[in-house]
């Protein structure tokens, strides 16, 4: 699409959307959001980029093959599930580490659940972009 306004605005918007997608991912455990939504927002951002410029430029901007991103996502999710094996618990049992925790206060929570959600984010993001790139480039 040859719209100067769209092209210019897109550069800003894509960055904004990507940041927002990560924000949605991170807040997902306590407020609406999460891996699925984050991944979708991120993918939408890139699709906007494709629409505004071209598939080739968007691919260049992404730098990595979206299919690889999706695969890495699945792998990360699987690894997150396997973490529980180290403490002898069943697959996908959430593991939590509370940094700076005080009584009554959970501090900064780090967890395998968050890692899993990141895996979901990457899988959805990469999967959808794989699809969109395929449709854009091959048709």
């Amino acid at each position, binding site marked *: 699409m040859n719209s100067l306004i769209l092209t210019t605005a897109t550069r800003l918007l894509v960055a904004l959307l990507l940041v927002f997608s990560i924000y949605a991912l991170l807040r997902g455990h306590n407020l609406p959001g999460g891996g699925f939504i984050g991944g*979708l927002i991120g993918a939408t951002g890139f699709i906007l980029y494709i629409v505004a410029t071209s598939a080739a430029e968007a691919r260049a901007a992404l730098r990595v093959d979206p299919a690889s991103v999706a695969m890495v996502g699945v792998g990360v999710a699987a690894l997150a599930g396997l973490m529980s094996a180290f403490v002898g618990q069943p697959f996908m049992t959430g593991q939590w580490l509370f940094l700076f925790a005080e009584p009554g206060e959970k501090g900064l929570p780090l967890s395998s659940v968050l890692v899993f959600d990141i895996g979901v984010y990457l899988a959805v993001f990469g999967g959808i972009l794989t*699809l969109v790139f395929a449709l854009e480039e091959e048709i």
Partner: protein
Amino acid sequence: MELLLALTIGILVACAVYLMLDRNVIRFLFGLILLSNAANLLIFLSGRLTAGAPPLIDEGLYAPTGVVANALPQALVLTAIVIGFGLLAFTLALVYRTYRSLGTVNSDEMRVAEPVAQEARR
């Protein structure tokens, strides 16, 4: 409201089925989109409707106060939407690819696997 929504689901399903019974695979595709929307609503409605109380736990509490919306069907529907999208995208690719290879979007003319001639010989 539940009854009305059930009726709406029925309308969605009926439209979807009518579209899916078409020879034209593009219409079939539209039917699929409607059907996946109907299915999502159906799961959602089975968990009952609650207005104005999202399933979130307020800061400082350990459990939601009062009645909140049923979280389980929401989780199910959420993944169903994403999976439905995957299915739809795949079907879309399939329709496009079929059109490219066979030059038709009419399912009756897609006879590579079950050719008509072979049937006559049997």
